[in-house]
């Protein structure tokens, strides 16, 4: 019985499963090269063959789960979902804006949703620009920033909230008997009672900032039950990591700045580049913000901007940086305006 697998990058799953999935999913073609790769990999060890066979059979088992088993995974579609109205509304907004929609919406859109409680948890979402306060039954509070989704996954013995996407500030009620944790894909933040902010960036980075108390952050490898790394983060400290590991060790920070979002302010520290600022601002608008001129990528900006009104924030940007904003129905396009008239419009934008 081989529990240790050969091959496969840490976060990619193992090759046995990759190949089994490739062979079973028949909507695209297998190239001769790919087949040679498979053959070579199979030839390399008997364990590879066995793992591959197991993965193939496992996939068939999943599709053949008895009805009772399937029902444990998908709920029937008759009961109304508590959030469904709001989610449906949000879906339209997303459809119009062509923007990323959260998981719950996707399932509703598919004519199928997964249980509100239980397996898929009680879900709370915010749409673009919205902020919301959620109080869980046990008393802890989550303040959700824009485009955020959290799910309650707790039980009588533990309190678990999944941060599916976005950013939230957690105020956790102390309860020694029921540890509280925020779970993310591949990591977990455990606390007893404290106040901390978790920001799951679109690019995959996670930033945890602690305002009070201490939290323990655990990073898991693929499918691992034991954490690959564990760090304690104290009050006024921040840690940043991604699926492949730590980006920065816990370090002192101005924790209050990390939660400025609660007052609708985006605080940009000195030395920030325009793209970083736009990455933040774009979370608060359904319009896309485009940089049309590569020269803008290295422009420095600093200051405080309103997240409640992205249009005025961008207008303010025009006064502090060589930027001109063109607004149309679904985009804000940013052009470069030379400081002086010396090189005006001498060359067209390099990339359209």
């Amino acid at each position, binding site marked *: *019985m081989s529990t240790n697998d050969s091959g496969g990058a840490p976060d990619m*799953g*193992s090759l046995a499963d990759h190949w089994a999935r490739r062979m079973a999913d028949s909507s695209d073609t297998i190239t001769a090269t790919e087949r040679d790769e*498979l*053959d070579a990999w199979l030839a390399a060890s008997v364990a590879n063959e066995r793992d591959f*066979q197991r993965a*193939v059979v496992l996939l068939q088992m999943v599709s053949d789960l008895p009805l009772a*088993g399937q029902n444990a*995974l998908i709920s029937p579609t008759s009961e109304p979902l508590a959030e469904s109205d709001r989610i449906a509304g949000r879906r339209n907004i997303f459809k119009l804006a062509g923007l990323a929609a959260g998981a719950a919406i996707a399932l509703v859109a598919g004519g199928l949703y997964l249980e509100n409680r239980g397996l898929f948890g009680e879900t709370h979402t915010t749409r673009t620009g919205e902020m919301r306060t959620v109080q869980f039954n046990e008393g802890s509070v989550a303040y959700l920033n824009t485009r955020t989704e959290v799910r309650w996954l707790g039980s009588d013995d533990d309190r678990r909230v999944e941060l599916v996407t976005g950013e939230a500030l957690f105020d956790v009620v102390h309860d020694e008997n029921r540890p509280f944790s925020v779970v993310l894909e591949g990591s977990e933040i455990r606390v007893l009672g404290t106040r901390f902010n978790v920001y799951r960036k679109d690019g995959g980075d996670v930033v945890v900032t602690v305002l009070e108390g201490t939290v323990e952050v655990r990073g898991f490898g*693929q499918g691992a039950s034991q954490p690959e790394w564990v760090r304690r983060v104290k009050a006024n400290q921040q840690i940043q990591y991604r699926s492949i590991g730590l980006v920065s060790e816990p370090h002192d920070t101005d924790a209050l700045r990390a939660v400025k979002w609660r007052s609708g302010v985006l605080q940009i520290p000195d030395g920030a580049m325009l793209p970083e600022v736009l990455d933040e601002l774009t979370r608060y608008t359904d319009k896309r913000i485009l940089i049309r001129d590569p020269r803008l990528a290295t422009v420095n900006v600093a200051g405080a901007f309103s997240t409640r009104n992205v249009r005025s924030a961008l207008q303010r940007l025009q006064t502090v940086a060589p930027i001109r904003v063109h607004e149309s129905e679904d985009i804000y396009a940013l052009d470069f305006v030379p400081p002086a008239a010396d090189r005006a419009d001498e060359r067209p934008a390099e990339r359209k």
Partner: protein
Amino acid sequence: MKGNRSDDERTGPVGKVINILQARGGGTDEFVSRLSRTHGAQLLRFLERMLGRKDLAEDVAQEAYLKLYRLSRPSEVVSPRALLFDVATKLALDRLKQKRAEAASAGEPAEMNDVPDDSPRPDRRVLLDEAMQRLTRIIEELQPSLRQVFVMRYVTQMPRQEIADKLQISVGAVEQRLTRALTHCRQRLAAHGIDWIGLE
């Protein structure tokens, strides 16, 4: 190995098996023919992807059906398609091995590698039953982001592109999550000491 064949993938290899075995009674031929009706096309696609040749795929499928026909109590099979794919995959792996051996020593008859079977062979049916039950639990315990994609794809049979569109992630990301979820499920099952292959 055959050259030309009918275009009907469903009845091709299965029809032959049914003809051969027409004389036999019991629930087995009904079991095999139902299995081939429901999963035959999928099995052929799978085998063809693996072996790269339609005629080889048909041969292997036919062999697999013949093997299943020797099953004593088909009604007790918990997951017929898992059984079918188990048998067929083993046969296909043997074919690939054979091909490699032939390529290595051109002319000489292929030498089949013997695969050491270190696992005990208790009642496989019971094991599969247990594996199926355990599997539900394991899927439930998957990381939510993996579980969602996995359930959408393999339980609700949603196409990958559709999942990607709905979740606003790339098809590549969907595939990666599927692979990771599968790895996790497989390792968890193995960790429970359950083996679910070699069912025949």
